[in-house]
């Protein structure tokens, strides 16, 4: 017990040296005995792996405060010996010359050629021994994060010697998660040993290591334990199935939210205005590139840049949309097929423009910290945060658009012009202005979609192309001129795609969905939610 405590102290200490000065005062406690340390290290440089194992144990028991560093270095293959017999730590083993430091004093010795160095080799058994040793050292760390990772690493790595140590730790531990993990680690050991207590403790645990332990216990000689383990396993399988289902649903909704974002702007220009904008995907691309440009302008603040690119992306795409409307579409009023061709030309020009001006290569857009990582629900289900943000963003954009179309003057005018242009004009609505505003709105939403997409996929000149066919499918499937239809169609197509993927493969799933929509259009040419009344005659 003492040994682990002191090891823990020095783990903290070493952390303190590299990360903060907090632990500096602890350093004076024990003065290192360099001769003894050298002896310990010498014992490592032997042929036999069994002897090396003993040497590692000796180091662990030595109370030397530098032990953790040595063991970590040994594990990483960075503990090496020079030609003249000195032990050094390789600080970075990349390139031809490596910077090294003295093992005993920590003093940096400059760069040495890799040919002058001799690595102290280890095998897999030693690697495991080292890992669990280091994990135990970390369990005494004051940092909760570190205790959590180390406890997690212990799952399935516990042996008989460790159990009493861990039991003591469980009593002292304040953090629930660490305690849960440690209990689980002990339970896994117990279950693997065929003890009933372990099997009972593992009931309902979704961690893969728990399942391994339980399936071992299921083969136990004791029929009671074996039956209990088998029953637990069956329950866990059931749980896992549900979790897998939830995960598929989540991915489906996430894909669906991307489709909705991509399609909703199209639903406005295509559905409401009757304009086929093949350059819609390229407007999304502009939004994504705006995000990239904002991050270039505000280096070091990816989060702020991302937030600012929401309005910026909207504006850039909306302005581009106005330019397209004024420059091309207004001359093609009432000729949807020709609008399709002309805007396709615009899309080619925009793509090539990005290739020429920026680069044909993909650009990296940084995901801010608060968006990366994932929300861990349980051992079998974790939801990535960036997808969750995009899902939320899609819903917010949708709600915003609904509000604009239903509750504002602009929405009223748009609907009036859509239903009967001549009548609306005679009521004093400036139809041309409404056209421009609608197109700007639809394009701006495309820009927003691009900003969101920059967090999920590569930002490159082909970004838009990859989405244009899918977004048309969503609009047509949902029913042209119906925003609700677009939402339902987008989300359901996303889910269908993800449900099909596991057994059909990504490409085949996509083909099946396309064929499904083609057939669906035959049955219901006006989509899921067709427009009714006079507007449908268009």
């Amino acid at each position: 017990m003492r040994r682990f405590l002191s090891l823990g102290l020095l783990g903290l200490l070493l952390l303190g040296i590299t990360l903060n000065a907090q632990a500096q005062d602890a350093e004076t406690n024990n003065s290192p005995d360099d001769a003894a340390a050298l002896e310990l290290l010498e014992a490592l440089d032997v042929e036999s792996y069994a002897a090396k194992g003993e040497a590692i144990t000796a180091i662990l028991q030595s109370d030397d405060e530098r032990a953790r560093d040595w063991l970590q270095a040994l594990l990483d293959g960075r503990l090496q010996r020079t030609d003249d017999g000195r032990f050094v730590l390789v600080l970075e083993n990349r390139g031809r010359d490596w910077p090294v430091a003295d093992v005993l004093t920590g003093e940096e010795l400059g760069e040495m050629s890799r040919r002058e160095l001799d690595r102290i080799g280890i095998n897999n058994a030693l690697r495991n021994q080292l890992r669990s040793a280091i994990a135990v050292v970390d369990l005494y760390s004051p940092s909760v994060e570190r205790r959590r990772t180390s406890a997690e690493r212990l799952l399935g790595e516990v042996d008989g010697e460790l159990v009493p140590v861990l039991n003591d730790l469980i009593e002292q531990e304040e953090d629930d998660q660490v305690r849960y993990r440690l209990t689980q680690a002990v339970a896994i050991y117990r279950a693997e040993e065929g003890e009933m207590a372990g099997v009972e403790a593992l009931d309902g645990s979704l961690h893969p290591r728990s399942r391994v332990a339980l399936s071992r216990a299921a083969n136990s000689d004791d029929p009671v334990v074996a039956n209990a383990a088998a029953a637990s396993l069956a329950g866990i399988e059931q749980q896992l199935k549900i979790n897998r289902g939830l995960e598929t649903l989540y991915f489906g909704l996430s894909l669906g939210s991307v489709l909705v974002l991509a399609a909703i702007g199209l639903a406005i220009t295509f559905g409401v205005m009757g304009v086929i904008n093949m350059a819609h995907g390229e407007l999304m691309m502009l939004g994504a590139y705006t995000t990239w440009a904002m991050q270039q302008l505000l280096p070091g603040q990816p989060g702020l840049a991302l937030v600012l690119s929401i309005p910026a992306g909207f504006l850039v795409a909306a302005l581009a949309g106005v330019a397209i409307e004024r420059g091309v579409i207004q001359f093609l009023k009432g000729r949807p097929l020709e609008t399709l061709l002309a805007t396709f030309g615009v899309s080619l020009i925009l793509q090539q423009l990005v290739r020429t001006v920026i680069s044909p290569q993909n650009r990296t857009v940084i995901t801010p910290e608060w968006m990366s990582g994932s929300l861990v629900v349980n051992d079998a289900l974790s939801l990535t945060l960036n997808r969750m943000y995009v899902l939320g963003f899609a819903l917010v954009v949708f709600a915003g658009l609904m509000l604009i179309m239903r509750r504002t003057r602009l929405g009223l005018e748009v609907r009036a012009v859509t239903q009967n242009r001549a009548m609306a004009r005679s009521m004093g609505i400036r139809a041309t202005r409404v056209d421009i505003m609608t197109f700007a709105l639809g394009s701006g939403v495309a820009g927003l979609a691009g900003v969101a997409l920059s967090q999920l996929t590569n930002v490159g000149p082909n970004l838009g192309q990859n989405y244009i066919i899918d977004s048309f499918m969503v609009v047509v499937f949902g029913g042209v001129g119906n925003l609700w239809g677009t939402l339902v169609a987008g989300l359901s197509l996303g889910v269908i795609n993800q449900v099909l993927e596991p057994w059909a493969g990504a490409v085949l799933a996509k083909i099946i969905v396309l064929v499904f929509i083609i057939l669906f259009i035959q049955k219901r040419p006006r989509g899921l939610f067709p427009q009714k009344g006079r507007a449908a005659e268009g």
Partner: protein
Amino acid sequence: MSLTTESSTNFWLTRPFSERSTQIFLGVLVAALALVTILHVAVPADNPLHVGAYTVNLFGKYLSYALLAVAVDLVWGYLGILSLGHGAFFAIGGYAMGMYLMRQIGDRGTYGDPVLPDFMVFLNWDSLPWFWHGFDMAWFAFAMVLIAPGLLALVFGFLAFRSRVTGVYLSIITQALTFALMLAFFRNEMGFGGNNGLTDFREILGFDLRTDATRLGLFLVTGVALALGFILCRAIVSSKLGRVSVATRDAEARTRFLGYRVERFQLFVFVVSAMLSGLAGALYVPQVGIINPSEFSPIFSIEIVLWVALGGRATLYGAVIGAILVNYAKTIFTGVMPDAWLFALGGLFVFVTVFLPKGVAGLLLHLKRKKRDDDTPAPTDKIQEASL
């Protein structure tokens, strides 16, 4: 009101003038074929007027594109169906021809398997998939060149026209069709060579594909196919069937109310057009020496539509002019400044649709009829919309 002027214009366009246009077109085509042949065969290679084998090959490629454009013009110009998926029929015809050419390689492939094409040996397949049987026989393969795309068009068209899917919707689902097929053909498991497609052809009907004589022969055969395809389309559009098609294009509902089974006319013309596209693809493949899934890409299909739009819709010969002009420009551009080609192509799309709604053919007609009033598009109203 507008309907009468519109249809009388079409009457004027299709009947008396078109007869002469057909004569002029066929005359020019035959003359061009003869001229290229003479310049290739009779003029010595060091003479600047000599047409090299590469150029003959290039012209052959243009002619197969021209046949494809004529097929698209038949459905778009005369039936009002903007198909953004005709590249699929072209590619299927090409694959049928490619399968025949693959089987002709025999045991001369890299792996020397007498039956299996190289890519199947590479994928460790031990026998031919069922749909590859029969393609060692030329008559079967050539029949499939027409039947396979025709069948796809029949099924697709039957479903679409029966449920009265028209206009933009039809355009979008044809695009989805070719996109789905592209994804499918990219898969190795499909048995069509996946990403790489079919290539490394040796001979066709016993003629070595790498000799100049075979290339000239293919060029001439493509020219003849173009002429025949053109005459077939002209016959269709100037027949009563063609008149009903045009009526469908201009006012589908009215035609239906007059008692015509519109969907049958649409289906017939659509299938004929698909078969012609397949033929064009089959003539294209031996000349370029490869067929791969990129021919299914939606961009290619939409490019075909641009050729027709540039040349002038509903004229047939305009489609030929457009296909040759655009592809010639593409050859020049991609050689001299490849980056500028997409700018040029994109600009062309915008320019043609905004400023040249009737294409080059319309411009020619306009110049011919200078004494008449200017030919700007009539103000938009319902009838005009339906026709476009």
